[in-house]
């Protein structure tokens, strides 16, 4: 690399309790370079970047950044303010936007002196507009961010960093919520900026983007940097092996003849003040022995659809039939009774009561069961025994059935929920993002269970933003966009991508 060095991370380490998130990780970045940071979920990518940006205080190691003069200077650790003034900008994995403020306010937040009675709004606006025309990243500046679409918010996040004159831009999974086309545009814009001297570190799980847009790839595994490779020397297989350490078998999906419908939605409508929470005239049928995949960019009505099928929200119009029986007053209890097993999208928020024990979380959906209670009193022995069996057969590992469920790792929480759902022999399984955030082993386990349920005669409704997951598991695919569902027969990524973006071609 002929370009000068602009950043070096020196042996950064970080522990969270017993978890070693980063173990002496070193990285270098050069001017105008795009470095992709890869690794499985939980490998420590975000943690590393958070240390760079000053959100986390490293347990060990140091960071040097090139001053405008070109000399490398140590960066004070643990101060986002210091990182910002050193020219480091970060777009976080989760939006860090104040929804009650306009995009312009979000962008200028923190860049002006706090204790001044005046703000130079016009100047700020002109500067942002300049950046927008230069980079092609546009967003409405005066609308409250809460009213913006996810793509617009993502652009506001990037504008925030550029507004601060970032010379080093960190993007943590910037395309997770974008359609493939939007993602491509974004990277083209970024490419243009790197030619002006911007350096970029981006984190992504999408190998396609990584191969197409980065110059160099660094891979983390279990908090350790396991390799670095020039993108020109890499291909999908090489990277996957670096990330996982070995080749993992993908579960195979045997062909199967669909049976009777287990879930039929017809003419389903749901109004909501937020467009991304509405559904319009949704029709779908899931049969026994069938996995129906719902693909789509997040925020297009997936949560609303899941909420209706879980019984959390009542549709404004249309009908729901489970196993041929019309559900008149849907609520979670009714849906459970009707044979719907639900794997919620946000397992920490909706899946478990973190403060209650693993054993209690395993029976939380069946409190009326005589096995669980007699005369309103809990059968503690039966509950404990149940927890023991389920933990064994679903391989739920952790501090034990009496420990609070929040102490389980993400993968084990998911296994707990699977155990709960599958033990009830559900007719329909609603799996909303069941694999997100899981490592390859746990993900394979979930996939296996879903296929097993399908084989046993259940229908599965799989909602996912990950096309590979859908392509790997689903028998049929529908795309959700703007609260509307369309069936799609092609299994071509390009076609599905276009539908996800709402193109009616």
């Amino acid at each position, binding site marked *: 690399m002929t370009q000068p060095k602009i950043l070096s991370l020196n042996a950064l380490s970080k522990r969270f309790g017993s978890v070693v998130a980063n173990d002496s990780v070193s990285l270098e970045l050069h001017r105008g370079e795009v470095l992709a940071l890869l690794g499985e979920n939980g490998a420590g990518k975000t943690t590393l970047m958070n240390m760079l940006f000053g959100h986390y205080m490293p347990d060990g190691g140091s960071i040097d950044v090139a001053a405008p003069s070109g000399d490398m200077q140590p960066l004070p650790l643990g101060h986002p303010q210091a990182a910002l*003034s050193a020219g480091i900008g970060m777009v976080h994995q989760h939006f860090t936007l104040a929804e009650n403020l306009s995009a312009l306010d979000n962008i200028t937040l*923190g860049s*002006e002196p706090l204790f001044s009675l005046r703000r130079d709004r016009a100047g700020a606006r002109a500067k942002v507009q300049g950046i927008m025309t230069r980079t092609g990243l546009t967003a409405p500046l005066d609308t409250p961010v809460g009213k913006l679409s996810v793509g617009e918010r993502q652009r506001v996040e990037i504008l925030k960093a550029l507004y601060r004159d970032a010379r080093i831009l960190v993007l943590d999974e910037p395309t997770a919520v974008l359609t493939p086309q939007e993602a491509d545009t974004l990277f083209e814009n970024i490419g243009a900026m790197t030619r002006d001297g911007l350096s970029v570190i981006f984190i992504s799980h999408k190998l396609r983007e990584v191969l197409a847009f980065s110059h160099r790839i660094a891979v983390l595994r279990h908090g350790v940097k396991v390799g670095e490779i020039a993108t020109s020397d890499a291909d999908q297989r090489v990277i996957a092996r670096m990330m996982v350490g070995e080749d993992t078998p993908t579960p195979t999906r045997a062909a199967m003849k669909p049976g009777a419908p287990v879930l039929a939605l017809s003419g389903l409508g749901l109004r909501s003040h937020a467009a991304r929470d509405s559904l319009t005239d949704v029709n779908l049928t899931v049969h026994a022995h069938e996995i129906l995949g719902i693909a789509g960019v997040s925020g297009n009505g997936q949560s609303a659809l899941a909420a209706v099928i879980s019984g959390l929200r009542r549709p404004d119009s249309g009908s729901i039939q489970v196993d041929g029986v019309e559900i008149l007053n849907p609520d979670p209890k009714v849906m459970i009774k009707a044979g719907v097993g639900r794997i919620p999208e946000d397992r920490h928020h909706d899946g478990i009561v973190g403060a209650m024990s693993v054993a209690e979380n395993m029976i939380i959906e069946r409190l009326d069961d005589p096995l669980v209670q007699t005369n309103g009193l809990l059968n503690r022995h039966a509950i404990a025994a149940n927890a023991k069996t389920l933990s064994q057969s679903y391989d739920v590992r952790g501090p034990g059935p009496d420990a609070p469920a929040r102490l389980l790792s993400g993968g084990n929480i998911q296994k707990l929920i699977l155990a709960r759902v599958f033990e009830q022999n559900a007719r329909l399984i609603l799996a909303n993002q069941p694999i997100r955030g899981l490592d390859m082993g746990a993900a394979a386990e979930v996939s296996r269970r879903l296929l097993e349920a399908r084989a046993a005669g259940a229908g599965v409704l799989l909602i996912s933003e990950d096309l590979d997951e859908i392509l790997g598991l689903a028998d049929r695919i529908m795309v959700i966009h703007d609260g509307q569902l369309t069936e799609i027969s092609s299994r071509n990524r390009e076609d599905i991508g276009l539908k996800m973006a709402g193109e009616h071609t």
Partner: protein
Amino acid sequence: MDILQILLSESFWAASLRIATPLIFGVLGALLCEKSGVLNLGIEGIFAAGAMCGWMAVWLGAGLWGGVLVAALAGAFFGLIHGILTVPLGLSQHVSGLGVTLFATSLSYFTYRTALPTVTSPPRIEPFRALDIPILSDIPFLGPVVFQQTAMTMLALAMVLLVWYVLNRTALGVALQAVGDNPDSVDAQGLSVYGLRIGAVMAGSALMALGGAFLTMSAFDAFFFGMVNGRGWICIALVIFASWRPGKALLGALLFGAFDALQVRLQTEVGAMVPGQVFLMAPYVLSIIALVLAARRAEYPRALLTPWFKGQR
């Protein structure tokens, strides 16, 4: 005097503004705290502390504006306690608030009694007097209602403007609104969540204390135990009614003041027919009704009541 006549009279509206003044301070204070994400139930005690400290400072010879300053500092002190307990330590805002109320009240009472052990009639100070601003107070209606009040009422009105201006027109205000909506947003931009929140709670508490100081330095000229008499709690309700907007906060406080002013006027009129308590109860009942009506539309600061810890997710 019939109701219409009352409602048209200058003295009625002047009284409404006078009664509203401590509430204006209090609502603005509560609003600042809550905008940043912290509920401050210490308000009732902070009122008492402001009333005692402001008065005591004047009595000891600090001068009226010195008293105002001392009251504000006392409020900020209790705000600091609440801020530390609820912001970096993330303790229950309800309990910390009630604890601060108990602490501020008992500390003020204890101090007052220890300093003045044997009084029978409370000592008096020379309080703020009603102003007579040359041209303004001659404006018909508006003059007597607004411009012949005491300097503290003027200060309260100025504070409405100031708080509005700061919240909506300065970088600090934008940051405050952001930290009450999503602390990560300010953290990611290099601002201190703790600093902003503690600062807001301290500033808000200082305003609350001015509400108390108004009672002993403007509405009256002496300190009495128990004289805050629930005024702080009312502010907590008014903030929701005001949807966390300074302008509506002023409106809410004025409405409450007007109702109270009407109440004392009507009570003498029909007191024989209706138990007096009905009138006393009415402002509270109306507050609840207003709350129920406003609750649906209320745009709570999204991060209200939620602690945020640095470096934790």
